[in-house]
């Protein structure tokens, strides 16, 4: 005890001596305090010296020291913290502190980060900064915090494969450089995601679905309960291209749902004609049916598997590979006779088939069966309880979000709104086990395996390829708060929707033929076939009249072509008159050049230009014996088809008249264009046989 006390006293004495040594008199005290102050002051620069970015800037200087362009690079290098500050966009990005060579294109050979130059993009760093596109925490000065913090900052760096989503924050149009974003947006509409989810553009317009799910109010007229059962169990087993998701229903649920759907179905009014066609097709007619299917260009819109199992055809209408197993014969016949009687909103035109054609086509389609599809479906008559349970299921699964069903109202806000899904705070998301803690992974998992988030989740499982899932996630990540608040002058609007409707009897006829399913006029319509907004300036009346009656082939290389609608003379004349009168371009007067009377010298000059200077024969055929190009339309009778004024102005600037055309603008002079017009207007007769016309 005494010993310990002695030790403490000894310590005290030593401390007192130290104190006297340091602060004994005023000179000593001043000296010591100065020293302590100096050490304290040195801590700050020392701490700074060991910062990550200082180390990296030093590494950069060593990296460029021995390069050929070292002097330039060193001159341009700016030491210290760098910052891009854009108050208008709320951008404070210090990324350029470490990413020092982003603007140095000559550093392209360096693959070491953070010293790579930025790849070529249409915007400059000083316009948008970094975080606007890449996410992450711009104001941070350590790598970890800037790149991957999810706690203090909501969004870590965006993985490269979803980068296109950032373009979508401002771009509502479909830029050519963002195929993935464009595809994702298309899928959101074509897979009907937006039937359940609300998705508003920054301008406040709601994205519209383009999948056209059928009304189910008369479903019993169209198909059987067995087919509905098998379809509900696995839509892709019926048609690989079906967009209807697989709801993973149990047998009992599918049984009850099919029972309810048949039960709610009402007969059509007027009732469909159950009469078979007047002359039932014979055995020889199978080939004739296939020919008619081909001649009517059903494949322009409908796909079907060929003998090799390859799906060919368009995707505007449903796949027809197993159509015979689905539809009832009398329904099919009524549909082919006039689809608008059964579904006023269908994109399918009203072909004017005669009874013989109807019989041929119907029996051809009915032969496209797959007995396996409903082979194992054996259903008992439905009980009341089953039907009631089916109704409950329809409400639970939200069937009425897409389909019209008798007695069931379309649910409002059935699924979460997606307008700002790209900025959804992670704290508000319940992650399934095994899903990485970031937004892209969550969205991907949610689309790929919706039921891994709990079987009670309403979202069904869609059949999607990896690239489609990536595209969808990209489109969803574009829906950010930042995008919603971006200054209006930076926003690039999408193509405005047009509700153009042609008037009068021609308008009615165009609606009946569903011209807008393929053609676009005044901003409304499909993109499968040429835009007809200026068609009246482009063609000669007599040719158009003949073409509408019998659409011959202009482009032999195309699979999708204009079908023959079997129009009457009066109908064709009505349409022709309307097109010739109304669809004129304001750019020029289509009668300003005569269609004939060009001099032989002009024509010969044009021939030279056609074959030599502009090598038009690479893509067009004027003389079928010699020319082979079939990228553009065949021009053997172009002098009968086109107006001279159109040819002249089209040669001068093709895109001005047809924005989507492939024909390059070759800056053809007025004289050349006139000579070429003269040559082309002389092409009026299709040579009947080889050597016919020279």
């Amino acid at each position: 005890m005494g010993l310990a006390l002695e030790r403490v006293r000894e310590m005290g004495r030593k401390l007192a001596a130290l104190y006297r040594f340091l602060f004994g008199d005023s000179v000593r005290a001043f000296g010591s305090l100065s020293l302590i102050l100096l050490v304290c002051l040195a801590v700050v620069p020392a701490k700074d010296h060991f910062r990550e970015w200082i180390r990296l800037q030093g590494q950069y200087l060593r990296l460029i020291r021995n390069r050929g362009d070292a002097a330039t690079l060193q001159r341009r290098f700016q030491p210290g913290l760098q910052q891009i500050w854009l108050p208008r966009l709320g951008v404070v990005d210090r990324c350029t502190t470490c990413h020092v060579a982003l603007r140095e294109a000559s550093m392209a050979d360096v693959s070491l980060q953070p010293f790579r130059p930025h790849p070529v993009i249409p915007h400059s760093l000083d316009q948008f900064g970094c975080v606007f596109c890449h996410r992450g925490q711009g104001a941070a000065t350590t790598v970890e915090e800037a790149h991957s913090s999810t706690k203090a900052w909501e969004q870590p760096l965006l993985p490269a494969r979803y980068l296109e989503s950032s373009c979508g924050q401002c771009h509502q149009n479909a830029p050519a450089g963002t195929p993935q974003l464009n595809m994702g947006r298309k899928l959101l509409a074509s897979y009907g995601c937006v039937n359940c989810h609300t998705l508003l553009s920054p301008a406040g317009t709601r994205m519209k679905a383009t999948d056209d799910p059928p009304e189910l109010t008369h479903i019993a007229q169209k198909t059987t309960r067995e087919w509905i059962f098998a379809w509900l169990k696995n839509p892709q087993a019926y048609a690989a291209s079906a967009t209807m998701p697989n709801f993973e229903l149990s047998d009992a649920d599918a049984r009850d749902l099919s029972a309810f759907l048949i039960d709610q179905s009402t007969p059509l009014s007027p009732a469909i004609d159950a009469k078979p066609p007047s002359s039932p097709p014979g055995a020889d007619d199978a080939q004739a049916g296939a020919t008619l299917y081909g001649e009517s260009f059903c494949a322009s819109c409908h796909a079907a598997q060929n003998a090799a199992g390859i799906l060919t055809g368009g995707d505007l209408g449903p796949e027809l590979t197993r159509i015979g197993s689905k539809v009832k014969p009398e329904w099919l016949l009524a549909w082919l006779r006039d689809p608008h009687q059964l579904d006023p909103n269908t994109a399918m035109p009203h072909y004017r088939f005669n009874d013989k054609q109807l019989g041929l086509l119907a029996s051809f389609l009915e032969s496209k069966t797959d007995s396996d599809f409903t082979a194992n479906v054996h259903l008992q008559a439905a009980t009341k309880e089953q039907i009631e349970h089916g109704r409950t299921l329809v409400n639970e699964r939200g069937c009425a979000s897409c389909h019209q069903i008798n007695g069931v109202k379309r649910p409002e806000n059935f699924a979460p709104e997606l307008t700002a899904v790209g900025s959804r705070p992670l704290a508000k998301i319940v992650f399934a086990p095994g899903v990485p803690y970031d937004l892209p992974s969550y969205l991907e998992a949610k689309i790929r395996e919706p039921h891994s988030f709990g079987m009670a989740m309403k979202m069904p499982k869609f059949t999607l390829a990896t690239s489609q899932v990536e595209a969808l996630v990209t489109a969803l990540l574009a829906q950010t708060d930042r995008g919603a608040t971006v200054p209006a002058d930076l926003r690039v609007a999408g193509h405005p929707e047009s509700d153009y409707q042609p008037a009068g009897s021609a308008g009615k006829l165009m609606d009946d033929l569903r011209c807008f399913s393929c053609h676009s006029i005044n901003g409304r319509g499909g993109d499968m076939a040429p835009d007809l907004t200026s068609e009246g300036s482009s063609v000669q009346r007599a040719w158009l009249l003949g073409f509408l009656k019998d659409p011959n082939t202009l482009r032999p290389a195309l699979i999708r072509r204009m079908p023959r609608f079997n129009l009457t003379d009066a109908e064709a004349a009505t349409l022709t008159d309307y097109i010739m009168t109304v669809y004129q371009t304001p750019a020029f007067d289509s009668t300003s050049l005569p269609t004939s009377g060009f001099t032989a010298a002009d024509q010969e000059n044009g021939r030279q230009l056609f074959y030599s200077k502009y090598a038009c024969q690479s893509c067009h055929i004027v003389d079928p014996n010699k020319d082979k190009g079939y990228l553009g339309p065949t021009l053997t009778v172009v002098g009968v088809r086109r107006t001279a004024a159109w040819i002249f102005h089209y040669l001068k600037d093709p895109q001005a008249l047809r924005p989507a055309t492939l024909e390059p603008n070759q800056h053809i002079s007025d004289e050349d264009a006139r000579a070429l017009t003269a040559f082309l207007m002389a092409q009026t007769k299709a040579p009947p046989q080889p050597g016919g016309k020279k």
Partner: protein
Amino acid sequence: MRRHWWVFAVLATTACHRTPESQPAVQPKAFGVALVEMGGGLQAASVGTVLDQPLVVQVNDQQGSPVKGALVTFRAAGQTILTPSSGLTGDDGQISATCQLGGAAGRYQILAATTDKSGKPVTLRLEEIALGYQQNLGRQLSERYCSRCHDPESSAERVSNYDNLTVKPHAFTDGAFLNSVSDTDLAAITTYGGAARNKSAEMPSYSGTLSKTDIDALLAYMRAVASPPYRAKGLIYASE
């Protein structure tokens, strides 16, 4: 203003950040002497995306017949991810892996490796192409304006015009020829037409249809997909 983006050829052997975490637990049941690429090489896709086709390699024995149960390991550079990163060959002697590309544009080398009986490594190098923004834009434009003539292959949706031309155009993958043409000449031919550089007049001028940005993008795409790979002159390259 040259496009040097592609030089990020990150080499599996030198810059391998992602080695398999642990040695695979699977033991080989058989050994072969050769690795052969069956498919999936030289695909072009956007940076960071999963390639459409899986990589397929086959292990062969001395007679050239497939070996079942040989262990194949895939190694890749940067953030390239191969799933699975290793495995045994199937009945047909083949193993396939899906490939997710890294985040920078350029060529990515993937090393497939197996061992023979004595434990000597047998390797095979595969290459994939990651397209950045500019190359991707070039690809879109190329598919719209160029491939109808420059790609001899026809598809169900698009019939090739290649056979109809008197002077056959070069495929954009034809590095053997295109690599020898300078950026300036390629840009001139695209902008002013084939006649501008003593080539066929069948190649039209695109100055009125495509912008300079578009033509730069097209060139970047051509350089990206060239095989053998294009290397600009006068540059320092990452050593192999």
